[in-house]
């Protein structure tokens, strides 16, 4: 479970102080699919990045499985518990699909052989076959790349996937595939998936929808898109 208690985030630019988040309070549970919707610049991506441990809140606390994020080894958290999936896929361009998924496994201490086997399984799970796994990202379609990114996120071994506009660069067909994939992970493997989006189709697959506006998280709404 992730508990967010009265979190605020402010950062200093060269010319001004920017308050991105204010008084954000919410809870996320395993086995659920969450969507955070809102306008551009409302603070959605920043909130997601805080949940991923890329930074710590200026005020308030984020408690992950009972441990406050400021007390966590955030590098370890990102390599073993939570993983990010980005709109631009963010794969290593000079590694094949298999090598991309194998990387976090080897980073966590698995031998090359075992990591390769596990990576193959994960790729298979997301629908990337043996032929495609030898391809570099530039040789894959958008949908395939995003599936590889999801497989890599699963490779951390954690059960938290934080996706920032995962279907932003995809066509409708691939969009459906990705949403379906994420939903399957939640239902079958008890993942906690938190997706930031302003795509109604992606939001409507969620169990819970939060609304972000001007840095403040709106009350949990029932799925307004239904």
């Amino acid at each position, binding site marked *: 479970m992730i508990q967010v208690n009265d979190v605020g985030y402010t950062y200093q630019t060269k010319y001004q102080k920017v308050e991105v988040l204010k008084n954000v309070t919410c809870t996320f549970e395993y086995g659920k699919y969450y969507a955070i919707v809102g306008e551009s610049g409302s603070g959605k991506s920043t909130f997601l*990045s805080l949940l991923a441990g*890329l930074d710590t809140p200026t005020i308030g606390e984020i408690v992950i499985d009972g441990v406050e994020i400021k007390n966590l080894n955030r590098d370890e958290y990102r*390599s073993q518990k939570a993983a990010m999936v980005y709109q631009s896929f963010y794969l290593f361009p000079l590694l094949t699909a298999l090598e991309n998924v194998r990387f976090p496994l080897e980073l966590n*201490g698995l031998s*090359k052989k075992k990591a390769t086997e596990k990576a193959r399984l994960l790729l298979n799970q997301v629908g990337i076959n043996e032929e495609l796994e030898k391809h570099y990202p530039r040789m894959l379609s958008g949908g395939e790349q995003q599936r590889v990114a999801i497989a*890599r996120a699963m490779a951390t071994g954690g059960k938290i996937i934080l996706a920032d506009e995962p279907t932003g660069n995809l066509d409708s067909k691939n969009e459906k595939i990705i949403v379906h994939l994420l939903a399957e992970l939640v239902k079958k493997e008890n993942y906690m998936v938190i997706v930031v989006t302003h795509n109604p189709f992606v939001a409507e697959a969620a169990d819970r929808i939060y609304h972000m506006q001007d840095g403040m998280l709106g009350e949990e709404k029932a799925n307004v898109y239904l």
Partner: protein
Amino acid sequence: MFIFRTAVENIRRHKRKSILFFMACLLLSLIMQVILINLQVTEREYLEIRRSIPVTGRVTNLTGTSSSRLVIPEKNIAAIENCDFLKDKLYQAPVWFTNHEIDSKDVRMNNSYYGLATNSAEATSYKEITWLEGESEKSLSDEELKIIVSKPLLEAENTSLGKDLDLYIHYQHCDAYDVISYDFSKQHTFRIIGFYTANDNEQDRQGADILVPYKAITALHKEEGRRYLMDGASFSLVDPAEINAVKEEMKKTGYLSIAPGAVPSRKGNALLFEDSTFIKTATNFEDNIRLNKIFLPVLLGALLVVIYLLVNMLMQSRREEYLLYRVMGMRRRSVGVLFCLEHILIALGGVIVSLILSMIMGGTSWMQGAILSLLVLLCICVGTMIALVSIGRNSLMLAVQKND
């Protein structure tokens, strides 16, 4: 192990960048080696010129206009004899011999033999001397009454090699007005230890009939309570670079500096050095070496800055990769080690090749090459670290958002 393996694979994956960086390290390392070799070669050549450009000197009068027919006091000769900075010391003085008793004032007009008291046959132009068995030019350094005579003298005296010859020597001395005169001497017995055949030329015809060790003549003079005066003395320097030390030492022993406006005299109390060529060449070399030594650290510093900038540029071009490593949970230190390792491995290849090339060219030693290589590698590490600090300076979240 995982980081090392990843570093090696990254080098392979970023082939073009790796080759460029390798070539840059090789070139820069080679430039540094060449600069160092240049300095060493110049220093070696400077040492060579000390051997190849001799500096000679001779005793002269105060005006520097005459270096023969001088009156050189014994103490001045002793100063040269005792000076360890000098070698190839050559002394000479005229000695008149007669085979019968005559008034010394007539010695130069009558049937007399002109001799040269010396320590080396170099004092004459006679090279082909036939020696008595067991004797050589070294005998001219002895104190014994030995002589080397001309062939005509041998025939005139009806004598031969190895025989004794009774001769009167006529001492020359010099009064306060530099006037040379001769005193009657006793008869002495000299052993003939060698003879020479003079060439048929003006110099040889006017040359000495007899060569006698100058120490033997000096000893005879002392025995009879007479002052012995050398006519000429010359020498060369063991190490031309010590020219100033030699001048200093000779000054202390009583030699004076040449004064062109002085009253000309026979007194041999000044020294004339043939050192202009050496000084000019040595000064050029010293200036060259000094400039190189000043310039070397500046150039090395500039090259190291270039290496740092190159590394920084490479790191900035892989900024996205760095961020991705960090997003995936790789520790900052591990990422630093990874990038450092990549750069060091490539640079190591470059410096090793440059080291081998410079050794083949007969350049720097292993030690110097190793030190230069370490400098290069250190600079690469520092450059990588500074670049990583620069990239990782901001919040990871903001960096990723900016990149995305």
